[in-house]
């Protein structure tokens, strides 16, 4: 029964990883930008939530109402003012710039908040749980998973049913032709980054409620995000959710064997899947 419990906890944790990954996947899908700063942006969101919730005396869950638009606005400005200037046929310049951004964010957080671990206090909901027979489910993990599913369903709907989503897909498909159809590339890219950071903000707040974080916590979140995207198959959002779940389950099962194996088990499963299915489990089928 312990094992089943571990699998369920892992799957719920996977929802959080899927949210780390969704923003990363969106940016890569729309503009072929590999955002090395993504993990640090998750942590930055957690700090923005910390400041808002402490400063205004808000529950961090309510602080989302402020953190999400702030991060989205930051994303749009970041893309228009900085990253768009580096975008072109070459993937390397934007990658290097986001690498620099990662260092800048980490050090700015270190200056502003010190290296001490912080945590977002969401109150009694953090420890609330429901008993389902022999299995006990935490209310928070279930809520995070439900929100992850809702976020991915929302992104999926946006991509395939709205004018903006079709603009994203047209840009992803053929950038040059999209511009001849009246798409302003700089603006579309800005919107994609805004949306990515809106999702990132949600992920960052839940990360901060779940565990303590410090300015250097971004790197491992970036790797979890990448692994979830690649396990699921690039460009497939539901696949990304599965990627997050597989990674989460691998980690909790690893921890069950030996607490030291948690992270290692995740990486090993990732490498195994990469070896067997290099395009991920659910690669996108397209023309």
């Amino acid at each position, binding site marked *: 029964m312990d094992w089943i419990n571990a699998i369920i906890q892992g799957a719920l944790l996977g929802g959080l990883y899927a949210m780390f990954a969704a923003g990363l996947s969106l940016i890569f899908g729309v503009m072929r930008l590999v955002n090395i700063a993504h993990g640090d942006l998750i942590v930055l969101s957690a700090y923005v939530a910390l400041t808002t919730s402490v400063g205004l005396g808000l529950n961090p869950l309510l602080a989302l109402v402020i953190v999400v638009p702030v991060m989205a606005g930051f994303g749009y400005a970041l893309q228009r003012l900085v990253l768009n200037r580096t975008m072109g046929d070459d993937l390397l310049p934007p990658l290097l710039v986001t690498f620099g951004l990662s260092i800048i964010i980490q050090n700015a957080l270190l200056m502003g908040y010190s290296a001490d671990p912080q945590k977002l206090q969401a109150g009694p909901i953090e420890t609330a749980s429901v008993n389902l027979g022999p299995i006990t489910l935490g209310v928070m993990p279930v809520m995070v998973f439900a929100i992850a599913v809702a976020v991915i369903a929302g992104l999926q709907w946006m991509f395939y049913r*709205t004018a903006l989503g079709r*603009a994203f*897909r047209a840009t992803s498909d053929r950038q040059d032709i999209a*511009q001849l*159809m009246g798409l*302003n590339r700089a603006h579309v890219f800005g919107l994609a980054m805004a949306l990515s950071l809106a999702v990132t903000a949600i992920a960052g707040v839940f990360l901060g409620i779940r565990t303590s974080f410090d300015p250097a916590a971004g790197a491992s979140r970036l790797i979890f995000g990448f692994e979830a995207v690649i396990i699921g198959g690039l460009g497939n959002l539901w696949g990304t959710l599965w990627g997050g779940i597989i990674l989460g389950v691998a980690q909790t099962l690893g921890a069950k064997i030996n607490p030291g194996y948690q992270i290692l088990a995740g990486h090993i499963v990732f490498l195994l899947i990469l070896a067997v299915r290099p395009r991920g489990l659910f690669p996108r089928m397209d023309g």
Partner: protein
Amino acid sequence: MAAILELAGVLKAFGAITVADDQSWSLGTGEALGVIGPNGAGKTTMFNLVTGTLPVDGGAIRLAGEDITDWPAARRCRAGLARSFQVPQPFGAMTIFENAFVAATQGAGLAPAEAEDLCLDVLDRTGLLRKANTMAGGLTLLERKRLELARAMCAKPRVLLLDEIAGGLTDHECKSLIETINGLRSTGISIVWIEHVVHALLAVVDRLIVIDFGRKIAEGEPRAIMDSREVRKIYLGIEADA
């Protein structure tokens, strides 16, 4: 007839090769202008310059009197310039409807509901309605060519640039294409049409220009141009020593 599109001394060279050599011509509002010339004469390049895919080296391009020479491609499209490609360039991972929808919402700037109506109407007129939900990546050449036209029409252009849209079509298909284009003209759209299928061109255009080595070498009434000795010599490559 006021000029809707005007090129004044447009220059473009790739290294030592001049692809647009002091090109000047204008398109009247509601006019259909045909463009002919041998392969490699710089016809498609001229479209790339007009739509903003390539920057000009010199000269000016004006749309409805406004200088658009330095405008990015997207802005030119929203201002009313749309083109079709000789080699169809659909968004392959999107459906036919979605291809048209992007042009209608972005190029024509329509709200989703209006855009949907426009797309369905255009797809109906171009014979693609039954395939509206098919992925554009899996279409036949004829369907791709129709999609090129449909997508350009959904951007609600004031000036439509057609690049060899009749090439590779059967006589019957060509006839229905001519009807579609003449139908478009009656809605007031001005057209520039590059075409090798001369009989299709002559069924539509009011005026012809001939381009060779990036230079405009003749211009005038279509029949007169086709009969002129210079055009027969350069374009058709016959009677060189007659």
